[in-house]
């Protein structure tokens, strides 16, 4: 089973607030892979809006997304595309 990690700088100008967090989770939930998001010392479930919000990831903060499972590559590709949008 592939495990894919990616370190990303949040581009969204308001950070990962409620709406992008919900979009992130909607994408994450399409995949079978276990998805985690890490910021500083916090590691949260990438399929939980509450988890993502807990990170309080502002614009410019650096997070690590990791997917573990057979669709890990596709999951990371789609999640990264969302995080790199700067709207």
């Amino acid at each position, binding site marked *: 089973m592939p495990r894919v990690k990616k370190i990303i700088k949040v581009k969204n100008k*308001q*950070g990962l*607030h*409620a709406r992008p*967090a919900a979009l992130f989770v909607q994408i994450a939930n399409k995949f079978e892979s276990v998805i985690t998001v890490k910021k500083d010392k916090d590691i949260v479930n990438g399929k939980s809006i509450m*988890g993502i*919000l*807990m990170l*309080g990831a502002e614009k410019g903060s650096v997070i690590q997304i990791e997917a573990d499972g057979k669709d890990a590559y596709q999951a990371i590709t789609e999640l990264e595309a969302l995080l790199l949008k700067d709207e």
Partner: protein
Amino acid sequence: MKIMDFLSKKAIVLNIKSTKKEEVIKELVDALINAEEIEKRHRNKIVDALLAREKLGSTAIGQGIAIPHAKSEYVEKLVAALGISSSGVNFDALDEEPVYIIFLLLAPQDSAGPHLKALASISRLLKDKYFRENLKACKDEKSIINLINQEDEKKV
């Protein structure tokens, strides 16, 4: 950020009456008006802003929690109301579950940073299942404040 830094003590509603999203939002906005956190003459504008935000996507974040929120020119500082519903409210959640804990958050325009920090604090506060159960079991506002204060104290 501590919850009690922005949660209005007088805007804690233990028995949310309505089971409809729109009515619950109005109930909590009225609680903030009664607590003199916002002005009554801005009620409709603020309610509209909150409902407009819900139209973009539900603010239910899972585990029976919703955090309706909006930025508004009629709000001077970050402020929140808390409602507990025993019967559950249909908040159009992604997981389709009703919500029981509703944190309504209002922020001034151009306050992305504090707003994000407040959302993070609320999520951190409510992530624990036992805490959520304890919160729902509170019989009065004072016990809710005590419970939240205890969690706030754990933050260094």
